[in-house]
């Protein structure tokens, strides 16, 4: 059994707010192996984004241990071990699309020729070839998000962390991007941790679904799925798919996700 890429054990994170302490994460333990596509699903307040941010060293846990590639999150971040995709494209409006994708490369000190090559490959990967000189506001929301994915992949990290990247897009664009993301994952063999609140999306994309429940944030259930790797969106109508989706929904219900 290969060493897990991410090993989290008994993570807890408590925020102090004006209305009292908020237990964003409570005793969360999770192992993620190389090459997996893991979805974290749950309602708001269940800690899925917080867990992702702890992995990314954007938040620090109050208790518990977590290691990424055998290192602490801090070391992993400084070693540029992962690419992060946010809920919004977060492209810098004063840079062209090409320069936006090159941003991490500039910071990490890649040579100019390397940068050009990687930008070209990145654009190709997300089907945005030819948009290099455009500015972010000249692209649609879906295209901007694709550019931000290309940016996350430009320096070739093995780990991809995505926080509800398609949440702000309409369903038709979302479907298309889901398919494209799946193909991308197939091609690049990255490990992906994907936060979402859409059940069909989670079931369609993942090899493993982590159902979380709120107040306090903890893991309720872990469901593995092994749909064929060359699946298309049609698979959403099959009984196997609906089965898994029902299991997820049941887990959410049991975790009081549908209760106020």
């Amino acid at each position, binding site marked *: 059994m290969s060493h897990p890429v991410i090993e989290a054990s008994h993570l807890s994170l408590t925020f102090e707010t004006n209305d009292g302490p908020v237990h964003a994460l409570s005793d969360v333990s999770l192992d993620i192996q190389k090459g997996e596509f893991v979805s974290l699903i749950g309602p708001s307040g269940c800690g899925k984004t917080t867990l992702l941010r702890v992995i990314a060293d954007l938040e620090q846990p109050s208790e518990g241990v977590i290691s990424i590639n055998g290192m602490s999150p801090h070391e992993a971040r400084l070693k540029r071990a992962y690419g992060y995709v946010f809920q919004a494209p977060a492209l810098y409006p*004063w840079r062209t699309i090409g320069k936006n994708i090159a941003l991490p490369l500039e910071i990490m000190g890649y040579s100019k020729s390397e940068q050009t090559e990687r930008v070209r490959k990145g654009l190709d990967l997300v089907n945005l070839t030819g948009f290099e000189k455009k500015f972010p506001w000249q692209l649609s929301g879906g295209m901007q998000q694709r550019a931000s994915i290309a940016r996350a992949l430009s320096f070739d990290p093995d780990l991809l962390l995505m926080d509800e990247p398609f949440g702000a897009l309409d369903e038709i664009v979302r479907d298309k991007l889901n398919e494209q993301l799946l193909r991308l994952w197939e091609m690049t063999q990255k490990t992906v941790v994907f936060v979402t609140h859409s059940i069909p999306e989670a079931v369609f994309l993942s090899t493993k679904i982590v159902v979380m429940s709120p107040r306090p944030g903890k893991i309720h259930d872990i469901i593995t799925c092994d749909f064929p790797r060359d699946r298309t969106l049609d698979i959403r109508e099959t009984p196997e798919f609906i089965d898994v989706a029902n299991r997820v929904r049941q887990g959410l219900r049991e975790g009081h996700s549908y209760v106020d």
Partner: protein
Amino acid sequence: MKFHRPLVLLAGALAIFAAVSPLDFGIDGLAIGDHLWSRMVFSLLGIATLRDSQDTPQPANAAWNVPFATLLAAVEIVELAHSDGLRGWGFFCAVGAVWLCAWRTVDLIVARTPALGHRARFLRILAPLVFGATLLVLWETLTLSFGVPKVILPAPSAILLRLVTSIPTLAADFVQTVQGIAAGYVIGCGAGVLVAILIDRVPFLQRGLLPLGNLVSALPIVGIAPIMVMWFGFDWQSKAAVVVIMTFFPMLVNTVAGLSAAGHMELDLMKTYGASYRQTLLHLRLPAALPFIFNGLKINSTLALIGAIVAEFFGTPIVGMGFRINTEVGRMNIDMVWATIVVAGLAGSLFYALLAAMEKRATFWHASYRERA
């Protein structure tokens, strides 16, 4: 607006009346034989306005009748004002008609301005220009025809004459004042940006300096001019010192605000790249701060001009725009005062326009440029 019809009718009536009335003072009865060309022009204006006041739809080109006639009439009344003795009732009716028709012209321009395109840009500039030109024409005719003494309010033509004949003096004044402004502006704004970056890493100092900075921006800092003259002498250096003090705090406050303008997501993105403080500052926070920095630069351009000119009220070698204004006011050469103010105003607006153009190039990406008016 709804009441334009009666006003336009009034304008037309006034114009016709002017065409057939005494234009000279003291001549009784109708005297249609003199100033024939002016009378023709006024009649033309009258006809054009009366046709305009009708509600029947007219071809698009007809809209230009009133503005064109107004322009001709305006030229006429200025000319008439410059000759002697023109103060008859007819003349003032003509002035009234021109004023009302100029307003109607602006109305027509505004009604026909499309939302986008080159024509829109042209017409958008034309409206205020017509307004300004009307003001100048009225100023000219009324000061001349009422015989307003030059020491109270000189006519624009007198000011222009003074300006053109005093170019050497005005140029020397300009150079003297600009030295102080330029040096003070560069040092003051530069120091403001630098200090803002320096205290960026010390939130404690930020919390202490910002309230003070806001306070100082509201104070009458020009009052520090006599002290600066005492320290740095009469020449431009003391003016530069005043400008430095006036421009430092607004720049500091604006830059600090700009440095906190970068979004949380963008900052987190930099963290995920393991970027150093310097890299984050250079690649994200400074570009994001540019709109604020330019805002400070624009505010400071006016402050610098005010500071240098007022500082010169307190003492300067016998040259400088502030000095010129102060002395010429004392000598009651009000046209020279106006000429200096015109130069200062032109300089101020040109520099501001330059800054705005630079801002457009540097911050073209900002949301405010992509909004529709």
